[in-house]
């Protein structure tokens, strides 16, 4: 099997699985589960051959799929180290989430639809990973949005789930509006959207058009939607309406990371002005989402805001590549460092955030679908495996030295420290908040007394759920080490920024922020209350303003939709009905009635009258036309 066939198989296996389930297995949940999980396992195994296939398994190939005039659209693969790394994340984390779902969704009546949705998601996501041009990325980008819509809407009888799925799709479409314009602009400007050709143009210095900063910024709009960055982040917290494994797969590990991946793909198109915007969008999202996470009660919402914040780190890391200063003092565009740090954090984040979400899923499953953290407590003894692995995830995300998150977050902080003081400060502050809300969650959920019946009756989950937790727990520990990450990422691992002199500063800072945030939370939530949050008790004003901050965007968009957009639509509809249909049309109707002298006969719907009238008209017009002209 050649690598190309291998890649094609990786892409098609989940598609076949989805098609089988949709066509034949709608009522056979058990069989659908088997098909989907087998497909995920098979593609994970197949992708191993590609990832560790060495240079022989790095290739690019494409086939023309549509041609009209001089517009040609191809589908093809570009399999380099970047794609290999992303393929590992998607296929491996994906497989373990499939496995987890077997346990988590065991009693769901609509299991077949769920697993069909997972398969179609895998197909769409792998399409983005393997794509060799921007149009193809866009195609699968939209399909990822669709599969996310399906899966968020799994519990479609719930109004909140229906609303959340709609919101997610539309927010993504808003981003895609810019993304598509960016792709078209790129195509119109450079004549190609093929990533290899663009890179070649970039190396030849041929990528300096007048609209050079418009292209990356428009493309970035796509990332805003898919990676839920401000101001399009509003859909992600609501997307927690979906089943928890879906949140782990789509809304933590893979789909929301697609924005980062896409940015790294089009790195060659970046210019300094665009990177500056990207940098600040990421930084502000990182801080804003961390602030929101502090006041959440719902265990999944904490993780959702945490995801926003961590993706913000990656976006910021990518943007930071811009302002590196070369040794002679002149500003020089070196994006590679940003790519290295962003992809490093993307990978470790996929491990520990999937772990945290699945851990939360295990907790929710154990507590009979209770998601309200204050009603939990004392789960450490009842759910030892979940507790142990969740702890690894918490320590990884807050940057405990030695765990995966520590290395990748340090790389980003180092980059910020070297390039931009303000960004460094903001990201460090966000890191304090990260440690705070994670330890808060950890403490409320696992320690102290059980504060409700469901928490007292909690039980550890079965093997199908604990095995994925253990594997991801292992990856959250070792995923950051050079000899693990280095093997996965290939040349990308060399792009991670290093610095001998700043090393100590960063180390001290990151340990300090972790201890500060974590310690504060540990003390504050010693005796969690089942009704009120500790911050709300200590400082109601602070709590209220944080809650208000979280709601600002939703209120603004809600106002726009209800009061502006809908009213505008109603007004146009009124004009349409009254003005166009009433005045103009009736006017025309009477005019035609006069000219055609058969209007009344027409009302009867009589065939004869119509035909005579029509023939008369033809003859008359023919006469007029031939006579006059």
């Amino acid at each position, binding site marked *: 099997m050649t690598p190309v066939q291998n890649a094609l198989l990786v892409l098609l296996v989940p598609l076949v699985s989805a098609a089988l389930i949709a066509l034949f297995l*709608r009522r056979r949940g058990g069989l659908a589960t088997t098909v989907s999980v087998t497909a995920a396992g098979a593609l994970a195994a197949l992708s191993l051959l590609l990832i560790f296939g060495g240079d022989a398994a790095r290739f690019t190939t494409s086939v023309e*799929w*549509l*041609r*009209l*005039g*001089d*517009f040609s659209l191809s589908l093809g693969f570009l399999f380099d180290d970047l794609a290999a790394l992303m393929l590992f994340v998607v296929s491996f984390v994906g497989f373990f989430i499939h496995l987890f779902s077997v346990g988590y969704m065991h009693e769901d009546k609509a299991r077949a639809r769920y697993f069909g949705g997972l398969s179609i998601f895998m197909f769409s996501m792998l399409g983005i990973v393997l794509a060799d041009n921007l*149009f193809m990325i*866009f*195609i699968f980008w939209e*399909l990822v949005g*669709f599969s996310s*819509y399906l899966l968020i*809407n799994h519990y*479609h*009888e719930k*109004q909140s*789930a*229906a*609303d959340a799925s*709609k919101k997610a*799709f*539309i927010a993504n*479409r*808003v981003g*895609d*509006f810019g993304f*598509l*314009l960016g792709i*078209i*602009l790129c*195509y*119109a400007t450079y004549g190609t959207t093929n990533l290899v050709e663009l890179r070649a143009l970039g190396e030849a210095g041929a990528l300096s058009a007048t609209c050079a900063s418009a292209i990356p910024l428009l493309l970035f709009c796509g990332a805003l939607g898919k990676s839920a960055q401000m101001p399009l982040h509003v859909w992600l917290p609501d997307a927690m309406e979906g089943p928890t494994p879906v949140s782990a797969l789509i809304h933590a590990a893979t789909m929301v990371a697609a924005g980062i991946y896409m940015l790294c793909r089009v790195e060659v198109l970046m210019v300094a002005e665009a990177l500056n915007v990207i940098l600040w969008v990421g930084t502000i999202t990182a801080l804003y989402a961390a602030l929101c996470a502090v006041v959440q009660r719902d265990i999944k919402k904490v993780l959702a805001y945490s995801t926003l914040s961590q993706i913000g780190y990656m976006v910021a890391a990518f943007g930071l590549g811009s302002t590196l200063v070369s040794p002679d003092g002149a500003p020089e565009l070196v994006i590679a460092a940003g790519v290295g740090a962003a992809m490093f954090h993307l990978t470790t984040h996929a491990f520990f955030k999937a772990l945290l979400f699945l851990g939360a899923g295990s907790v929710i499953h154990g507590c009979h679908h209770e998601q309200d953290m204050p009603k939990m407590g004392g789960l450490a003894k009842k759910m030892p495996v979940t507790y142990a692995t969740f702890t690894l995830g918490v320590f990884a995300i807050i940057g405990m030295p030695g765990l995966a998150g520590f290395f990748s977050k340090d790389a980003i902080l180092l980059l910020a420290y070297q390039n931009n003081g303000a960004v460094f400060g903001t990201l460090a502050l966000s890191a304090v908040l990260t440690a705070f809300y994670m330890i808060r969650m950890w403490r409320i959920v696992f320690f102290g007394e059980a504060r409700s019946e469901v928490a007292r009756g909690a039980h550890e989950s079965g093997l199908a759920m604990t095995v994925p937790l253990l594997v991801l727990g292992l990856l959250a520990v070792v995923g950051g080490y050079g000899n693990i990450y280095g093997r996965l990422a290939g040349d990308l691992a060399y792009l991670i920024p290093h610095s001998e002199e700043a090393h100590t500063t960063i180390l001290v800072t990151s340990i300090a922020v972790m201890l500060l945030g974590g310690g504060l939370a540990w003390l504050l939530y010693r005796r969690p209350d089942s009704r009120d949050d500790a911050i709300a008790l200590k400082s109601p004003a602070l709590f209220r303003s944080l809650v208000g901050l979280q709601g600002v965007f939703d209120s603004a968009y809600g106002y726009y939709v209800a009061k502006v*957009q*809908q009213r505008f*639509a109603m007004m*146009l*509809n009124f004009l*349409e009905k009254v003005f166009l*249909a009433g005045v*103009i*049309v009736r006017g*025309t*109707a009477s005019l*035609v*009635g006069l000219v*055609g002298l058969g*209007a009344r006969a*027409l*009302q009867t*719907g009589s*065939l004869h009258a*119509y035909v005579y009238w*029509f023939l008369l*008209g033809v003859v008359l*017009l*023919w006469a007029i*036309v031939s006579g006059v*002209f």
Partner: protein
Amino acid sequence: MSELPFDPLLLAILSPLAVALVIALGLPQRASVALACVGFGLPALLGLHTWYHFPSGLGAVAASGVGGAGGYAFQSFYDTGLSRFGIMLSLGLNGISMPLFAMAGVVGLAAGLYAIQSGAERLKTYLALLLVMQAGLMGVFASVDVFFFYFFHELALIPTFIMVGIWGGRDRHYAAMKLTIYLTLGAMLSLVGLIAIYVKSGAQTFDLIALRNALALQPLGESVQSYAFGLLMFGFGILVSLWPLHTWAPLGYGAAPSSAAMLHAGVLKKFGLYGLIQIALPLLPLGAAKWVGLLALLAAVGNVLVIGFVTMAQRDLKQMIGYSSVMHMGYAFLGIACLSTVGAGGVVLLMVAHGLSVALMFLLATSVHQRTQTFDMAEMGGLAQRAPVLAAFFVAATMAGIGLPGFANFWGELSIFVALWSFSKLFTVIAVAGIIISAIYGLRAVARVFFGSPSAQFTARVGGQPLADLGWAERLPALLLLGALLAVGFWPKSISEPVNDALQSTVSVAVSES
């Protein structure tokens, strides 16, 4: 040679007509239904036959020199006794008409099957009229002669009026009248334009290939081209619901019985676009260049933007589909306005895709109505719990309609967007914004009909009555349409290749020469 030559085009036109005639002569109901299946099935099979056997590289031959078959295949000629006026029943398919011919066959079969299971009153008459309409539709796309192109359109149009008037829903008499006045006016205007071309070309022929060859040697004067194109643009524009001449469409479709709406919105409406691409652009390139600015303006601001918002405000499911179809026609006009192979090719792809998807939407809307007894979306909700298969089809049809990749519509829209960029950046931005607008109204409708909990009115009306999911009689036509949408969506080259081939030799040549 004594054996009768096999002419798939003539057969596709005559078979539904013959079946209609036999049914009208008083065949018993059951035999009528069985025969109607043949009358609808044969054109669909023949449509697929022409697609499968369509020779590649026809356009290159046509472009290489004036004369010959002009890029047409499956040609045949029948004398109708009008040859001294230059009128011949000349049939044939080029790369532009073949995909539409095949699409018309598929949509016709789906509409026919859906009509058969609808249990409409006076079913035989209904089927006979649908069959006449189907014959006209096949004829429109199979005609190489402009006179017959127009004649077949009228043949398909007249049954529409009658079906709306008799089997229509609310406001059917008003709708039938309005439809008649508008569409007749549109047809008249375009007829004047066509006759003007006939007279002014001096070629004494309605044969499109002969006209094209004649005008290639001696183009019409600029002023003649200009008013002829104007007449065609507004005449065809009315038929395709160009803003602000579109108001017949939502009303008419709202009232029309489902199969008639499927055939009209899906296929017959494409007559105008087809006429613009096949006749107006190649014959009147100078005229086109003068008018496309206005055309694009009306389409972008009127059809896409204004009607997009109006669609959002609809409560009636069928009206919403009607308006959304008006909006999508805006994309088609924009593609034509680009005057390029990419733009026009995108329009042909979109015509095929939209024909399939809007027919599917009307079909499913009627199936929803049968279960909720209303078209008012505010009085529905939660239908997915009781009819999951219907919900799945509806979601798929909506996704096709809003241009999700994997469905045919995506390729048409994308090509039009790409083409539009070099025509006007502002209009491109407006058109691409349409993907947000259509997502909003599409998903909102899906959510209001299928998701969440049932509304109080729905519970009161339907309550605890058992509610069947989509049965096989409804599922079969829906599957047919959905399958075609997915097939083209996954493999666009199946139609883009002949389209590209044909356009390279007509539109782009004509435009570049001007």
